[in-house]
């Protein structure tokens, strides 16, 4: 026997509790976030892919939509199962909501004998992201280390993240290019969210096992129709995650990985990858943790000055430009920069991996270069380097 709580009956849920929502409870959760003033965003199908978009209710969710992913390939399939979260990450990541692809930093007008600066007004928007996957929440915390937790904090980023409400949905249907279980970022999640849901569809029916991660998340859950969870519900969640772990399309051996790459900077394999790599920068643009940006100044017709910040990529020739030319002129050295940054030097710089195993770079690479395969190629010929480099500080 389970106890059903209506939206209004005032029962309270604490962080650490596990409850069950049905589709109606999810609908109420979205509605109550909207009522509370949140701008609710979640998965939406656009241009044949699942990407973050506006979300006003359950009917906006990609019901019965599944993705088929492979290196260099992504396709959606529609089924009549009622699954709302039966897909893995698409090309758009939540990064763009917090760290926009292009943003004005300030404008300045000459005034008298000085200059008046106008910075964009603080972002008033309170964003609730619904249906973020565990790897994406992990990616946001990686970005936090760069833009919010260092010596210099980006106030625009910090204010967006501060106001942010996170409803994460654990993964029951990882993609063929996913390897979050290798990176310790999924398919389940224990922290970094306000509410975590696990979509379960078994003989007991279609439902969501819900766990509040914060007091605020617990408060919202208390207000929506839910049931207390049974052992069967909790067991069903574990089964979903176990199955996901088995279905995970790819693996990456992270044992000693940072130092493996650090000591193989002169490995001949970088040149082999370069023969395939188009240096198109797709991998860095879809990556939820890549943070590189260009800063550009312009003058408008009125004589005001503007400064913008725009996403950039270490695959751009200009990324490493010093007067005279780029430091990394070859594709081989740019690919090496990308991969060693993600998996090795990120540890030195930010004390974490720069890769969360979301698989986007594998799926969205036009020629299907697979980071897990390239690591394996280097690992199996470790030492083929022309020279060795002492292992870096802070690497695991």
């Amino acid at each position, binding site marked *: 026997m389970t106890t059903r709580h209506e939206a209004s009956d005032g029962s309270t849920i604490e962080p650490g509790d596990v409850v069950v929502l049905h589709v109606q409870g999810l609908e109420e959760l979205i509605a109550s976030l909207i009522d509370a003033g949140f701008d609710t965003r979640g998965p939406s199908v656009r241009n044949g892919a699942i990407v973050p978009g506006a979300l006003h209710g359950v009917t906006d969710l990609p019901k019965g939509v599944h993705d088929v992913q492979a290196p260099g390939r992504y396709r959606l399939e529609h089924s009549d199962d009622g699954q709302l979260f039966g897909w893995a990450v698409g090309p758009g990541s939540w990064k763009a909501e917090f760290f926009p692809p292009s943003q004005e*930093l*300030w404008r*300045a007008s000459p005034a008298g*004998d*000085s*200059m008046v*600066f106008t910075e964009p007004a603080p972002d008033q928007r309170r964003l609730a992201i619904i249906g973020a996957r565990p790897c994406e*929440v*992990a990616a946001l*915390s*990686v970005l*936090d*280390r*760069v*833009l*919010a*937790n*260092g010596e*210099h*904090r*980006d*106030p625009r980023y*910090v204010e967006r993240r501060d106001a942010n409400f996170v409803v994460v949905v654990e993964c029951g249907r990882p993609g063929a290019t996913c390897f979050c279980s290798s*990176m*310790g*970022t999924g398919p389940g*999640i224990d*922290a*970094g*969210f*306000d509410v975590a849901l696990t979509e379960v569809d078994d003989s007991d029916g279609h439902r969501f096992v819900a766990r509040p991660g*914060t007091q605020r998340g617990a408060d919202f859950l208390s207000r929506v129709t839910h049931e207390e969870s049974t052992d069967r519900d909790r067991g069903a969640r574990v089964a979903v995650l176990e199955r996901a772990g088995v279905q995970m399309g790819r693996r990456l051996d992270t044992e000693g990985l940072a130092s493996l790459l650090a000591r193989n*900077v*002169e490995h001949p394999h970088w040149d082999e990858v370069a023969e395939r790599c188009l240096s198109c920068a797709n991998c860095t643009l879809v990556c939820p943790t890549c*943070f590189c*940006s260009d*800063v*550009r*100044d312009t003058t408008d017709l009125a004589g005001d*000055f503007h*400064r913008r*910040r725009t996403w950039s990529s270490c695959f751009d020739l*200009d*990324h*490493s*430009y010093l007067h005279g030319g780029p*430091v*990394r*002129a*070859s594709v081989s*050295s740019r690919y090496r920069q990308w991969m060693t*940054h993600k998996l090795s*030097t990120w540890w030195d*710089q930010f004390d*974490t*991996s720069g890769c*969360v195993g979301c698989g986007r770079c594998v799926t969205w690479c036009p020629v299907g270069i697979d980071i897990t395969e390239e690591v394996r190629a280097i690992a199996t010929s470790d030492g083929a380097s022309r020279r060795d480099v*002492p292992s*870096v*500080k802070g690497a695991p």
Partner: protein
Amino acid sequence: MTGDAAPATSVALAMAPRGPRHAMTPVVHRVFAVRHETIDVTTISLEPVTGPRLTFRPGQFNMLSAFGVGESAISVSSAPRDAGPLRHTVRDVGPVTHALCESSVGDLIGVRGPFGSDWQVPGRGERDVVDASDTVVVAGGIGLAPLRGAVDELVARYGEGGGRVFVFVGAREPSQVVFHRDLELWKRSGARVEVTVDRGSPGWSGHVGLVTSLLSSSEFDPSNAKALICGPEIMIRFTARALVDQGVAAGRILVSLERNMQCGLGWCGHCQLGPFLLCRDGPVVAYAGMVSVLLTERER
């Protein structure tokens, strides 16, 4: 989880009270004086339009904005003990540096900084953290700019019990040697100053040759010396190696490195060199260990 994913409402993210300015917004300075050092190198002295002067340590840099053109990383070339305005010495190599070199007295320049690590030379009344009797300063070309403040501080310490100072400067040709006045002043204060050029010119009676060739015949004590090096990266590499071969401990050699920089804040990713974000972990780094290897690693 990767690392310790912060909860969505993490305290670490708690928003700072909206400060006076975004770290990307410069402080407006006025050009107070302009001095043409060579045909393409100009020193500009800056005073804030309002508010106090920036404090900095020798070796640190600022991001200077030529409004409407762009921003560049430029080292502070004055010394903290100068009471005067903030000086920057700029070589005209492209749009931003050109605009900076062309500025005239009264023009407005944006300043963000200071950023990065410094030469660790003790300031007035401070103790020397790297204990060495001799300081060997090797500069190539415009590389003397970030070192000028450091040498000023070191030379000033003669009277305060500081060690000996040896300054070696390499330049392409005599007309491109910067800071003639300072070189003379340092010499008069007791520093050993040697300048060498790649190509002599009529009237030049000084050294002609590579800057490293000055090191072996100098009388500093390698076993009790520390070294500060700045210049083109290849020159840094060869100079550091020559000093190590001569007996200077690699751990006592500091070098200042350069990479593309667009923020100075650790945000834009352009200044990476292996494990370093040079705007944050540099530009001044210890030559020992990782750096000596990075400098010979092939980024092609």
